[in-house]
């Protein structure tokens, strides 16, 4: 039972100062420019691996814990022989040429050191470039086909009504995840996210095949993606409603996972311009470069990105730092635009994380959620439930989740991640999820129609709070623009966390492009997206 009223986004409820809004966007553009320049002049090991995967390189070498994915081996060998400054694709397709056009054979030969990559010259170079270009076009076709295929399936089985109820599964075992995800879909989930095993984000490779041994999450692998997408397609047919699948294009392998997501028709991806920096201590240069590439893939694959601003409020105070969420959203929006994402693909994240003991907590959450709704009228906002203040009191926690759903309903949030009453205790039980859906069905059914009815007192507490957060955001962006993005992060301006430009994991994988850098996949992506590479 949803509601009698169709979903809509209530706007114009708070008299937002359009001047401040415009200034925030200008500041974000100003801040993003040098970072985008960085991305345009660098590549990373993971971007090169992603491109190899897209043109068909896959598989592993070795077994068990010793296993190394072939894309890693190939990029490592190219790096060691000719270097990565001019990209991996030309040397790779040169090898392909010498293997009679067989991509697998070339990859195996390089990985097995039977063939040493070289930078071809003259006609060889032109041949490799032609091959690379053709393969890139095919790869990019395949990504674009994901978007078309999704549209087709949705049209055939039926689209889910908004808001989309989003649930996570996290057993660690894909075979246990599948029935749980199907059960959740049957009970009303519109989006399933398979949480990753702790630590995957720090792996500088993507595990291979179906997996069953994650901790508090299941490894993101291409095979796991495929299995879950198929399971959800099956249940979607049964239900007459397309069930979306989400994973994480985040961590050291962000570009590769984005590529896998494109190939396996995932629908949404967690993908943030700063999450890895703040929460995984991944080097900031690496992150900014990787996110640009991965976003181009998402853009073309019709994937909705989900940004991670909600996480800020787990480390910082949700009242004091409300404006940092908004500031990061303006930045994520800017970086998304420059990577070719449309507004309707920007699942900007925010969260209901104010301490329930704070007086007027519900009023404040409403003000924040409505403000964000008004700032991004065309974005499918992703609204995250309370986590930090969830305790072992599952009854009270169930109620917090209900108030979260209510604020979501009243402010027209598009993607609603359902809270779990046991958030303070363990990764969700099957029944936790079922109860969460019942909670959401009740609240959305009962209150979504109210969203259209509510007005707030002009100059009242809700409006004043919203204006204050927007103003604090403007001031923050001003400061970031003054000192630059890197310095701002170094000053701990986001998530109360301090990171240095050369610190964190993965800097070694960042490579400045040399003048002759060639990446036909990236080129083709930007061409089709109509953006500068």
């Amino acid at each position, binding site marked *: 039972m949803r509601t009698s009223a169709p979903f809509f986004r209530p706007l114009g409820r708070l008299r937002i100062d359009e001047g401040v809004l415009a200034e925030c966007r200008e500041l974000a553009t100003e801040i993003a420019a040098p970072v985008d320049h960085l991305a345009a002049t660098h590549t990373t090991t993971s971007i090169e691996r992603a491109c190899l995967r897209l043109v068909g390189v896959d598989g592993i070498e070795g077994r068990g814990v010793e296993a190394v994915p072939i894309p890693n081996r190939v990029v490592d060998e190219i790096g060691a022989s000719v270097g990565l400054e001019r990209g991996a694709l030309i040397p790779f397709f040169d090898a392909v040429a010498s293997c009679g056009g067989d991509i697998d054979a070339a990859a195996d030969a390089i990985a097995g050191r039977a063939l040493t990559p070289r930078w071809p010259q003259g006609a060889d170079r032109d041949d490799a470039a032609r091959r690379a270009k053709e393969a890139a076009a095919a790869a990019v076709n395949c990504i674009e086909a994901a978007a078309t295929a999704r549209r087709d399936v949705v049209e055939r089985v039926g689209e889910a009504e908004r808001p989309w109820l989003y649930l996570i599964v*996290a*057993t660690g*075992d894909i075979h*246990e995840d599948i029935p*749980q995800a199907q059960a959740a879909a049957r009970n009303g989930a519109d989006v399933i996210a398979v949480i990753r095993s702790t630590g995957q984000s720090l792996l500088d490779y993507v595990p291979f095949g179906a997996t069953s041994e994650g901790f508090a999450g299941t490894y993101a692998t291409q095979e796991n993606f495929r299995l879950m997408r198929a399971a959800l397609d099956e249940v979607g047919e049964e239900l007459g409603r397309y069930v979306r699948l989400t994973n994480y294009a985040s961590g050291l392998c962000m570009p590769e996972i984005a590529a896998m997501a494109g190939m396996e028709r995932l629908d949404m991806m967690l993908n943030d311009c700063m999450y890895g920096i703040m929460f995984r201590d991944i080097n900031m240069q690496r992150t900014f470069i990787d996110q640009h590439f991965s976003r181009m893939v998402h853009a073309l694959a019709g994937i909705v990105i989900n940004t991670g601003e909600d996480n800020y409020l787990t480390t910082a105070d949700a009242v004091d730092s409300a404006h940092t969420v908004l500031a990061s959203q303006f930045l994520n929006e800017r970086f998304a635009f420059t990577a070719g994402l449309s507004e309707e693909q920007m699942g900007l994240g925010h969260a209901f994380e104010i301490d329930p003991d704070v007086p007027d907590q519900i009023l404040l959450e409403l003000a924040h959620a409505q403000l964000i709704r008004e700032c991004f009228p065309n974005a499918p906002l992703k609204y995250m439930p309370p986590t930090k203040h969830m*305790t*072992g*009191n*599952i009854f009270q926690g169930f109620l917090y989740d209900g108030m979260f759903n209510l604020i979501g309903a009243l402010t027209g949030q598009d993607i609603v991640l359902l809270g779990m009453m*046991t958030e*303070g*205790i*363990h*990764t*969700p*039980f*099957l*029944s936790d999820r079922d109860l969460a859906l019942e909670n959401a069905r009740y609240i959305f059914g009962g209150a979504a129609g109210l969203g259209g009815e509510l007005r707030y007192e002009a100059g009242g507490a809700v409006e004043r709070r919203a204006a204050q957060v927007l103003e604090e955001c403007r001031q923050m962006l001003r400061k970031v623009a003054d000192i630059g993005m890197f310095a701002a992060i170094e000053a701990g301006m986001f998530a109360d966390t301090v990171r240095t430009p050369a610190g964190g994991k993965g800097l070694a994988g960042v490579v400045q492009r040399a003048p002759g850098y060639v990446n036909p996949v990236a080129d083709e992506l930007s061409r089709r997206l109509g953006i500068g590479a």
Partner: protein
Amino acid sequence: MSALLRPYGDATGDGRVQLSFTLPIASSERARQAALELARKMGFAEPQVVHMKEMGPDFSFFIVYGATAHSVDPAGLTVAEPDFPLLPSPEINRIIRDSLKRQLVVVGACTGTDAHTLGLDAILSMKGFAGDKGLEYWQEMRIVNMGAQVSPGEIVAAVDEHAADAVLVSQVVTQRDAHIFHLQEVHAALTEAGLRDRLILVGGGPRFSPDQAPALGFDRIFGRGTKPSEVASYLAWKVGRRAGLSEADLTRAATLA
């Protein structure tokens, strides 16, 4: 499905169960240990107190998660599977006609001090329950709804007066086992009056379970969410059996309840 059932939290066989209870002790590490010990006595391996809340100086409330060591063999359970068929409306009327050659007379009442009539009304009145019409809907039944707070003596008198075939007793209040006590009273009064055996004696209420019938001397007891059509089917089936109708005749066009 495996033979033995174990609770399922987020993995097959993990045995996870959630408990909550109050202990009459102030909150302290000792109180927490007492809660854990209680859970262990219930058969929990590695119970966890996830919430301990002081309620005044004398009590603490606990929420505990743990993995139970117990399992259940579902095949080994004696389940009071519905032994009567769910009959379509016209069949109910037909069976009563064939069996009695007159209307079936039903006396219904909430006995004792129980004033919760909604459950009984849901079964008896035309309005019915959950989209299902009540017993009054069947033309071959005559319903005498005595309402609430009816004493056993009044029920006996009504059975006499209306020459009832069936008595339906509702009980909603269960504190101090009031519902058990009141059904026993009705049973005793009808037995004393020598009426028990010629009656179909049916009880009902949200906290009953069907397996309680034999111990209370009732023919059948219905629990939470009972639909009137189930009760109608049961009455027709019972009356038909008593009249010697064949099982095949009785279950014509029936689905299993």
